[in-house]
């Protein structure tokens, strides 16, 4: 309207404008927050917690959780990104202390040139240390290194009632275990001590092996897990029951001489229209991806960023899924129930809503570091689905049945829709976590899966 001046637009309450970029990575659900606090220093956090209402706050890192576990609809967030100081590093042990908003990318940038790397890294380096702890994230080395949380020795936790507490396996051990994988609900992590690992350089000796069945994948995993630090597989989920895919395995290379040039990458500038990723496009992509990698099977030397973070080179790849966003579905099912995976893939293939990136990994048996940690022995499968309304939700609901019947679990960091019953089935002991939730904290996810119980 021409009569509306710029000033009247400015007078809109700040909150509606301020918070619209605080979404999760799946860009679904799209929610509004009442306010986003952005403390720049840890000394500001206690007053912030004290003045907040009950169940009103949630820490937020880089927003790489896919669903609603990093959202707090109509309530408030504490954006921790400005708490990003590296506080100490011991060159002899690799012990690092940093604030919770430091990203894994920061750590790699600062410490890889000195010959240190993350003990565990998820498929993106654009997550904060606080987020990596709160979701107890895993990586391609879960079978030998466990989760991120198992490399955290100690952490400082702002609690609304007790101030700043130090937590470790000796001091406040239950609170320590609750905070690892605690979805940000136990308080605001002020700092954490973690142990980096020595590496010779930025190179990975990688090997690609095509496989044509789930049994083939399992054989490759079992054979590789003892002498490859990193293993993971990509799965073409359009192939239905005769699952084909590419198995990736690798170790840090001892090579140091070769010159390394960081990959600058491109980004997706805006959300693609929803129809762009239709089933034919995705099917074609999967076929091409398979052919391309199958042709490159064998051993090669690759840089750490293309091995660990292939998608980080495409900034904002979540925009490929259009305005309505997408859902991730990550489950773990005991590997004795291989038929369950066939059933899952069959249901997906029949729905025609197959996914770009099916990722398959065999978890190890390292005991979980946190009370609500997701990784447990079994095979884990992660899939993306463009959000197409009820159709998509119905498909995922039918996958839930398979997961539940086969003693599986869903990953909260990827979820935007699981039922309270499935959460209970996934984390049967979740009630023992409840006493450690900070009374000032809550999240959309937490209310969704627990409030009716």
């Amino acid at each position, binding site marked *: 309207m021409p009569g509306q001046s710029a000033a009247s637009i400015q007078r809109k309450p700040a909150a509606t404008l*301020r918070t619209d970029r605080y979404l999760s990575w799946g860009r679904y659900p799209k929610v509004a927050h009442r306010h986003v606090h952005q403390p720049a220093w840890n000394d500001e956090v206690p007053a912030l917690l004290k003045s907040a209402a009950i169940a009103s706050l949630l820490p937020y890192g880089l927003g790489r959780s896919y669903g609603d576990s990093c959202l707090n609809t109509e309530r408030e967030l504490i954006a921790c990104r400005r708490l990003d100081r590296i506080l100490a590093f011991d060159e002899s042990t690799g012990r690092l202390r940093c604030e919770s908003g430091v990203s894994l990318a920061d750590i790699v940038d600062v410490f890889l040139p000195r010959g240190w790397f993350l003990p565990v890294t998820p498929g993106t380096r654009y997550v904060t240390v606080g987020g990596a702890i709160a979701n107890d994230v895993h990586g391609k080395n879960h079978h030998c290194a466990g989760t991120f949380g198992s490399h955290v020795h100690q952490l400082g936790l702002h609690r609304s009632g007790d101030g700043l507490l130090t937590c470790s396996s000796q001091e406040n051990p239950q609170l320590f275990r609750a905070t690892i994988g605690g979805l940000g609900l136990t308080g605001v992590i002020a700092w954490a001590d973690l142990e980096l690992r020595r590496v010779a350089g930025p190179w990975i000796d990688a090997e690609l092996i095509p496989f044509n069945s789930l049994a083939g994948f399992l054989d490759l995993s079992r054979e590789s897990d003892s002498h490859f630090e990193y293993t993971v597989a990509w799965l073409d989920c359009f192939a239905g029951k005769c699952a084909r895919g590419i198995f990736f395995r690798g170790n840090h290379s001892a090579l140091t001489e070769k010159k*390394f040039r960081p990959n600058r990458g491109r980004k997706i500038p805006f959300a693609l229209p929803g129809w762009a990723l239709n089933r034919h496009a995705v099917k074609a992509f999967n076929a091409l991806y398979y052919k391309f990698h199958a042709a490159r099977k064998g051993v090669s030397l690759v840089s750490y960023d293309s091995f660990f973070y292939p998608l980080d080179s495409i900034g904002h790849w979540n925009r490929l899924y259009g305005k309505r966003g997408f859902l991730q579905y990550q489950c773990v099912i005991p590997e004795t129930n291989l038929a369950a995976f066939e059933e899952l893939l069959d249901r997906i293939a029949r729905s025609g809503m197959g996914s770009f990136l099916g990722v398959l990994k065999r978890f190890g048996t390292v005991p979980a570091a946190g009370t609500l940690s997701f990784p447990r022995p079994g095979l884990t499968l992660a899939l993306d689905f463009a959000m197409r309304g009820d159709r998509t939700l119905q498909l995922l609901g039918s996958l839930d049945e398979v997961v539940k019947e086969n003693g599986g679990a869903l990953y909260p960091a990827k979820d935007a829709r699981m039922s309270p019953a499935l959460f209970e089935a996934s984390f049967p002991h979740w009630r023992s976590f409840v006493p450690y939730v900070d009374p000032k904290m809550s999240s959309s996810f937490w209310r969704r899966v627990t409030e009716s119980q």
Partner: protein
Amino acid sequence: MSTTTRFSGSSSRWGRKVVILGATSGIALEVERQLARRGAELLLVARSPQRLAALEADLLLRGAKQVATYASDLASIQQHAQVFDFVRQSCPEYDTVLLAYGSMQDQHDSEMSVDVLLDELNVNFVSAAAILTLFAADLEQRGSGCLAVITSVAGDRGRRSNYVYGSAKGALSLFLGGLRSRLHSAGVKVITIKPGPVQTPMTDHLANAARFAEPGLVARDIVRALGRRSPDVLYTPWFWRYVMTAVRQIPEPLFKRLEL
């Protein structure tokens, strides 16, 4: 690991020694990080000793050659002599001073309270002019060096919504213009830095804050300006030079009616 330093992304080492006044301000934090990556020596002055300690550790790990800190409230002019003495003792061969502190309280408060008004003028202009005078005399005598000062595009024109902050920053810009002219013949550079709105704790309370410039981008422009071909007046991001040129052309009878 000499073989692996090549992929650190750090550009050539930069043997500068930079004093930063207001080292914990949002823009200063980013500037310091970029200077640290280039191996600069930093001397940081800010109010909080705890924050300075965290900052010192961080900047050293990120590549700063040396970091010294001094806790002082620069709004209090009585403390300036001590700050100045500390700099001269701990880093006598400093070559650059970046003044980065400022305050932006709700304009409405300074309309209602003369105390708040005087506070704003003191922090943003009086105290800045005072401490710059100490460093200016020192560098003038030495015949080299650089004074870089963060003012604001808000100082280019008095607007109803923000004229208290704006007038203090505008006065500071005028002060720097004169200082530049005075120090030019002595071989000392004076850089007036005029950022548009930036996403920092100082501006978090404003509507539209999410659309403001990223502090990292502004810091990159500032670090570049501290380099060899320094401009007299830096607008950052760059388009503000043209926006403010246009804004200055609007005749006052019309401008006073605009709700800016």
